[in-house]
């Protein structure tokens, strides 16, 4: 555990020193501009606009970091050969991978938390007060974070056996596919043929299901999110990350470094 924590802490430190968190400045400017603009229009949709815009920004910025930093977590260490000295220490390759994953998830957590604070400040500016109903925004932010953890795990997996560019494409492809799983499952047999329908159905269960993590509309309208969905999404993300990381560990443990 100490070894995993050491790798995770170093990964976090690397992200901070590589100025990954500078995106927060962009987010802050976006929120300030939106709050001022919405404050002037004031058509009674301030909350909807701020929450939708804020959550979209949290999600997109997080995704960019998760994918682009995620694919470089292992490949950068292999390319620069920084891994040689590290693997000579008493650390298993899976511990290194899990540490790298943990480090980036920690970075994303700090980043997302800071953005959430910005979002609430913008909400406070336009609404002049916060109520219990706004807590649903926190749940939406939490779901975004879970989604990002899955994306990090996927980008790690792909970067273990392919180039950075392909890893980005594969991760982005799976992310997009994961947003439309219900369409895939509901394809009728007459349109794609019965065999393909079965195939798509099976594939849809293997792909990450990101649909359940999207509660942006509910959050914007202040609708409560059922506790069971929070539990379900949490368990799903833990399980999915666990399986993907196990796969990544198997691949990486057998990989000859250059």
């Amino acid at each position: 555990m100490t070894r995993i924590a050491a790798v995770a802490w170093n990964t976090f430190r690397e992200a901070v020193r590589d100025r990954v968190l500078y995106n927060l400045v962009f987010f802050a400017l976006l929120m300030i501009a939106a709050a001022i603009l919405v404050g002037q229009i004031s058509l009674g949709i301030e909350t909807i606009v701020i929450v939708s815009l804020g959550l979209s920004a949290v999600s997109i910025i997080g995704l960019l970091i998760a994918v682009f930093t995620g694919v470089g977590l292992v490949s950068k260490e292999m390319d620069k050969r920084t891994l040689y000295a590290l693997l000579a220490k008493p650390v298993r390759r899976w511990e290194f991978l899990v540490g790298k994953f943990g480090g980036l998830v920690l970075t994303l957590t700090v980043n997302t938390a800071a953005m959430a604070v910005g979002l609430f400040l913008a909400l406070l500016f336009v609404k002049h007060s916060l109520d219990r109903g706004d807590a649903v925004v926190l749940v939406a932010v939490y779901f975004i974070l879970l989604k990002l953890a899955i994306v990090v795990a996927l980008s790690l997996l792909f970067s273990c056996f392919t180039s950075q560019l392909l890893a980005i494409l594969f991760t982005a492809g799976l992310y997009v596919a994961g947003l439309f799983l219900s369409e895939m499952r509901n394809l009728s047999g007459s349109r794609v043929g019965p065999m393909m329908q079965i195939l798509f159905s099976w594939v849809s269960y293997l792909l990450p299901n990101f649909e359940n993590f999207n509660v942006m509309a509910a959050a914007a309208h202040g609708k409560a999110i059922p506790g069971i969905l929070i539990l379900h999404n949490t368990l799903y993300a833990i399980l999915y990350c666990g399986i993907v990381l196990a796969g990544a560990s198997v691949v990486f443990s057998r990989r000859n470094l250059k």
Partner: protein
Amino acid sequence: MQVEEGEAFGFLGPNGAGKSTTIKLLMGIIFPTAGSAKILGHSITDVEMHKDIGYLPEQPYFYDYLTAAELLDYFARFYGFNAAERKERVARMLKKVGLETAGKIQLRKYSKGMLQRVGLAQAILHDPKVVILDEPMSGLDPIGRHEVRDIILELKREGKTVFFSTHILTDAEVLCDKVGVIVGGKLQGVGRPDEIVGMKSQGMEILFEADAADARSAAIRAKANKSGSRYALRVPEDSLYSALDELHATGAKIASVAQIKPTLEEYFLHLVEKDRAQAAAIEVSGK
């Protein structure tokens, strides 16, 4: 190939011979297609044995966003040292490799030689029983090389097993109890430096002084090489006594008699040439 405990072992070979590949196999960076290796009785697949091993990669490169002190502190965490122990060890190691004043500078600003020193510091940070160094002298100036040589000698004195690859044969001759020569991926010889090169004696060398105007020694002088005021005559070992008798008869003054031993470098070059000749022969027969 076997390296005994407490030995300094030099792993020699030309570029592409397989020195770094062998070391990477031992360190679990790449995996063998066949065969096995053990360090301190543990299989090389056992990660826990790394607690007792220090490794310096060839042309090491470390996280450039860290300072040398941060890097050593990071690596020290893998050995379970607490904060106080880490601080003390990091300071001691930086001093040992001559980087005590540069410990707080980010590694991106380090020269190749400084990175080599950091690499050495991280290899011996945890006081390992076995130290494996891949080209430890590479990229260092003469002072740096001398310092690394001193560190290796100190490790030897401390009873540690030191295994290092090198191109610099004089270092191997000075530092090693034993050397192994690898050429073309095959181990060509293992033994004490003087032992492996001494296997093939190149005869005897007689150093003598003779009057250049003396006609009696003209014939033997013609066979010798003039070196300053002296002549050096090389003869096969079994002709030594007849050559000495001949010199004595001509009135020459014998200064010294010594066995001609090939240097490690000559032996090394001989192996490389042999390997190239074999490769060429295989290519010709293949065609």
